[in-house]
């Protein structure tokens, strides 16, 4: 245990005097440890998840009956703008980077990320972006007294964002908050790429890299490509609003369509940036609970790279009603549908992994199974929306809202929950309660399906998104009421989840290093891992190093 004093200077101090709460806060703020930064990312994202969830609830109350006056249109517009912006930039991105930060070095046998200080900088600048966005509730009025938080929608279409249509500073806060989160994202993406390329332990060739690490590698490249146009567009918009340039100012000859292209060339890859890590969690969790190696490792890597590549060329499927002309529409229809091929490969490979296995239905696996069915359905409604003429009807309707919540909640959030139940023991050293976990899963699944299955129907019946209320004669009222009721089950489930985390952290069952009998390197060190992760640099000989150790007579590398 001599190395404890070497690697843990604060540990030796602790022996002298119990650290005060100030020491603890200081150690977290100044930390450059990838595990602590990862946990801070996740904690920060969870806080924003609750805030974004409350915003969603306010919208659901308002929409539950026609001609409702629970909120004013202005407040409702702020709620959906903040809900969307928060969930994408301050929940989705940080929680996925949080898991990436925590897991990638452990999975590739490294002691930390390649650039620990950049890592810390990226986290804090992202966190500041979120605070700045929410400060708009106080400071958005500006000198004009014109509204508080941003109310232009999360894709902030020009020219609604022009100074004349959006006075005050709310849109400026939106620009700067998202801009800062983009800087943090690029920093972390850079860190992940360098870490994965250069810090792999002995024997871990790219062909033995855990699929989760492969996915983070591809995602990080996509972040480089996608964040650039967004940042450029944000700067152009800021210039329009502050010094009177006319990039998007249609009154002065600027182009509203230009903003759409800029935004969606970021916005669509962004969807894959969020969903690919969810695939990565599934790649790690489904094999362990099926007791089988992932089926088609090489095909999975190829499909990931394929999705990353094709997803950069599909953005204008958000613009089928903009008037691109039939040739443009046809191209983006085809490109969008082609994504379904590598995505299909992934679903089939997960199916083949389960096939012939011995499936145990622990909570992480339950959420993964929910993910498989729901992602399948979300992909198929995505095909419908990719058919340009069908999209002329469905685009910007509640069908779209149902579709992308199926992806963001039904697929991504489900896999985030699965990841929590799976890696919580590694992060804290304690198991989460299986009993509460099952309550969480079943209640959330019930609520999810009531809300988001039915959400497609008012869209088919002509209900556009982003309306603060609607006419009683349209026949949308009862659907919306049931949709809102579904949200109640989801809230209860989330409360159970939060309670489960707190309770398990306090007095959960001790986990030990490898509670799931898993195969990747993070399970070879203690739970929680020491500051330095591994006392000795691991050496691996296959994709499943712990399988090799557990089955010395039947090692994996014989089949690679």
């Amino acid at each position, binding site marked *: 245990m001599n190395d404890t004093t070497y690697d843990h200077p604060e540990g030796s101090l602790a022996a002298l005097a119990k650290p005060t709460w100030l020491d603890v806060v200081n150690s977290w703020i100044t930390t450059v440890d990838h595990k602590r930064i990862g946990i801070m990312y996740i904690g920060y994202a969870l806080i924003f998840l609750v805030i974004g969830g409350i915003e969603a609830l306010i919208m659901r109350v308002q929409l539950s009956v026609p001609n409702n006056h629970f909120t*004013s*249109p*202005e407040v409702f*517009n702020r709620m959906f703008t903040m809900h969307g912006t928060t969930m994408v930039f301050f929940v989705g991105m940080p929680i996925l980077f949080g898991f990436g930060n925590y897991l990638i070095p452990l999975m590739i046998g490294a002691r930390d990320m390649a650039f620990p200080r950049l890592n810390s900088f990226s986290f804090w600048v992202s966190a500041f972006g979120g605070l700045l966005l929410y400060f708009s509730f106080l400071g958005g009025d500006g000198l004009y007294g014109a509204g508080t938080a941003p*109310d232009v*929608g999360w894709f902030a*279409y020009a*020219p*609604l964002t022009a100074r004349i*249509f959006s006075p005050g500073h709310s849109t400026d806060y939106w620009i700067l908050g998202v801009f800062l989160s983009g800087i943090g994202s690029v920093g972390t993406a850079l860190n992940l790429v360098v870490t994965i390329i250069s810090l792999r332990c002995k024997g871990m060739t790219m062909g033995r890299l855990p699929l989760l690490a492969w996915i983070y590698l591809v995602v990080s490249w996509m972040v480089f490509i996608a964040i650039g146009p967004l940042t450029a567009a944000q700067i152009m918009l800021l210039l329009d609003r502050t010094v009177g340039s006319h990039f998007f100012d*249609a*009154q002065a*000859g600027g182009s*509203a369509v230009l903003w759409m292209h800029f935004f969606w060339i970021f916005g669509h890859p962004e969807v894959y940036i969020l969903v690919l890590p969810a695939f990565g969690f599934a790649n790690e969790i489904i094999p362990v609970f099926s*007791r*089988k*190696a992932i*089926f088609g*490792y*090489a095909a999975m890597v190829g499909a990931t790279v394929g999705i990353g590549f094709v997803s950069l060329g599909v953005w204008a499927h958000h613009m089928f*009603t*903009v*008037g691109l002309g*039939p040739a443009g529409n*046809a191209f983006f229809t*085809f490109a969008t549908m082609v994504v*379904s091929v590598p995505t299909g*490969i992934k679903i*089939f*490979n997960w*199916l*083949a992994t*389960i096939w*012939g*296995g*011995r*499936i145990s239905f622990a909570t992480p696996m339950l959420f993964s199974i929910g993910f498989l*069915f729901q992602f*399948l359905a979300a992909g198929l409604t995505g*095909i*419908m929306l990719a*058919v*340009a*003429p*069908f*999209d*002329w*009807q469905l*685009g*910007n309707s509640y069908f779209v809202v149902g579709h992308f919540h199926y992806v963001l909640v039904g697929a991504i959030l489900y896999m985030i929950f699965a990841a929590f139940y799976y890696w919580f023991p590694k992060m804290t050293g304690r198991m989460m309660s299986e009993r509460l976990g099952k309550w969480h899963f079943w209640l959330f699944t019930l609520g999810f399906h009531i809300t988001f299955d039915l959400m497609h129907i008012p869209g*088919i*019946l*002509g209900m*556009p*998104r*982003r*309306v603060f209320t609607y006419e009683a004669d*349209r*026949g949308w009222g009862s659907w919306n009421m049931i949709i809102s009721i579904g949200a109640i089950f989801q809230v209860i489930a989330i409360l159970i989840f939060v309670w489960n985390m707190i309770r398990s952290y306090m007095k959960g069952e001790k986990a030990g290093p490898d509670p799931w009998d898993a195969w990747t390197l993070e399970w070879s060190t203690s739970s929680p891992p020491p500051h330095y992760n591994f006392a000795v640099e691991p050496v691996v000989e296959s994709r499943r190093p712990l399988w090799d150790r557990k089955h010395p007579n039947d090692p*994996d590398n014989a089949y690679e």
Partner: protein
Amino acid sequence: MRATKGQSAGESQLNLEKLMSFGNTLNAPAAAIADPWPVRVFHKIPILGSGPTSIFAPHATPAHDIDSLSVFVLSITLVIFLIVAGLLLYALVRYRRRPGDSQMEPVQLYGSNQIEIAWTVIPFLIVVVLFLTSARVNFVTERAARPANSLEVVVIGHQFWWEYRYPKLGIVTANELHIPASDPKAPTPTYLTMTSADVDHSFWVPELAGKMDLIPNKVNVMWIDPSKPGIYLGQCAQFCGAEHAMMLLRVYVDTPEQFAQWVASQKKPATEDASVAEGKKVFEHTACINCHRVTGTVATGQFGPDLTHLASRDTIAAGVEKNTPDNLRKWIDDPDSMKMGSLMPKMHLNNHELDAVTAYMASLR
């Protein structure tokens, strides 16, 4: 073996043609060709065709073509879902861990190139079929030949109302679009040339056609050819600011006679009625005229709806309220009370002035 393969390839080609022609009632007059059976089955599902704005209750060729295409796409995706979800469900039940299972790990399988190729190629073929059917409807709708007798209407989106101009008829009106019914045997479609005066909007009347955006500095065109007279509803489908939800669409499909009558009445100059002279005077001496137009008066504003024939419309405030004197008075008194966030300011008129202006407005038939 080889023979069977050849045969099945031939069959699948046939099927492909059949599939492709499935969505093919294109440009055929809506009533003339019976829907294929899956569309008919689909339309029997009660909830999907209900309400006045369902996308599965088409009343014009563009909406009808999309309807057939949609049912085709829905059928294919439904089959895919049932197969894949069925396999998943089977695997979950069949390969679940049972109490008496051995402690040995199951047989480890690492992959199979043949299977990988199969489930790459088959989805790709489905994608090609879907793409071709989609592109066909897409091209046929957007590149439809424009008959010489079509009606042209310029649609201009405003925060938060619709302006309609009939350039060849010299009519300017707002919020209620009148078009003639189109006889399937001799179609007289209406072409909507669209742009926006301020921010992005989107024109969506689901029973007639898919939506098309109204974008400043850009001109878009769409067409509709409803054959059944009636009122078709919709609303703005692109978020455009505070009152986006209250920017409702009403399309009046008139019989040719009704339409001719409507045109004749709209072409008349504004009614002159001595009994409402006081109201006219109040109107012409307040800021009303900065935004509104009444032909033949000093009111030549461009920002708000043309009021020359206001009383001929069924609704006010972009379809939000019925056009009754009470509602008009309430609206003029305090627009925000009816439509919070409306850009029309409160004019601070006293009760007497309000009554007078309301009477004047109600006289503008």
